[in-house]
């Protein structure tokens, strides 16, 4: 995957967490997600469409997610509530939107967020699209951003026709 697809997300999660609730994020070494990689208990998911397609996932262990949501909302919320899911959705929405602005492409859209909560779930990305995991260390715990993005066929065709 093009490294320029990954870097904006590193900057974005740091920007969102520091601006909204002053939580520093230390970025680890990105690595490819494999079939056997487990997903944390809480996943905030955004779909990307247009000239780039794929998914972006904010994956967090339950305890870390509870602490982060408490900082974000100012309230302690149970993981199984609608308000908790809403907060996780808004976080991944801001991270994705912020990163998208750095792509310098005219036609990339993001979906409204979805949130999956439960141990042992797996978020699958489109086959043929590699998924890069960005480990992030915070005072609330270790969390992961998963980026599975590629150029759409339409955009690739337009580019090759112009070349």
């Amino acid at each position: 995957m093009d490294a320029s697809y990954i870097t904006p997300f590193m900057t974005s999660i740091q920007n969102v967490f520091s601006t909204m609730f002053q939580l520093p994020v230390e970025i680890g070494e990105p690595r490819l997600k494999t079939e056997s990689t487990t997903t944390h208990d809480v996943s905030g998911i955004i779909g990307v469409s247009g000239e780039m397609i794929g998914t972006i996932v904010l994956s967090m262990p339950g305890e870390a997610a509870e602490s982060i949501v408490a900082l974000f909302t100012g309230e302690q919320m149970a993981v199984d509530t609608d308000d908790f899911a809403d907060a996780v959705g808004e976080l991944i929405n801001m991270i994705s939107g912020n990163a998208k602005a750095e792509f310098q492409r005219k036609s990339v859209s993001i979906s409204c967020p979805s949130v999956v909560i439960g141990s042992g779930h797996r978020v699958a990305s489109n086959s043929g699209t590699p998924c890069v995991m960005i480990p992030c260390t915070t005072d609330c715990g270790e969390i992961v951003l998963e980026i599975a993005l590629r150029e759409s066929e339409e955009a690739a065709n337009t580019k090759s026709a112009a070349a």
Partner: protein
Amino acid sequence: MRILLIDDSKTMRNIQKSVLKQLGYTDLEEACDGQDALSKVGAFKPELCLVDWNMPTMDGLTFVKTFRQTDKTTPLIMVTTEAEKSRVIEAIKAGVNNYVVKPFTPDLLSERIAETLAKCGVNT
């Protein structure tokens, strides 16, 4: 001052409410998408709207275009993750008076609200 907060995220509406209450604004109404907002503007008669862009049912841009067909003056501030310059221009062309990119600090939101109200000649 009556302020309508239009965002599908309750978390974001709560954050905005908290900032607005600190600024002394307490007459607040909430809508979870553009359609919901349109159904509330008649009765609530907002003097300022904060509008998200990406929402289900009716997005913020469609709301702004629809609202501006009958109301040319009520100040509208787009509060969104859509940060590309082309989007900002699109929103301004549709009729928003100011633009705030998420994430934002309480100070930034306060500044943009004050700036917008002053620009639109609204007495607070």
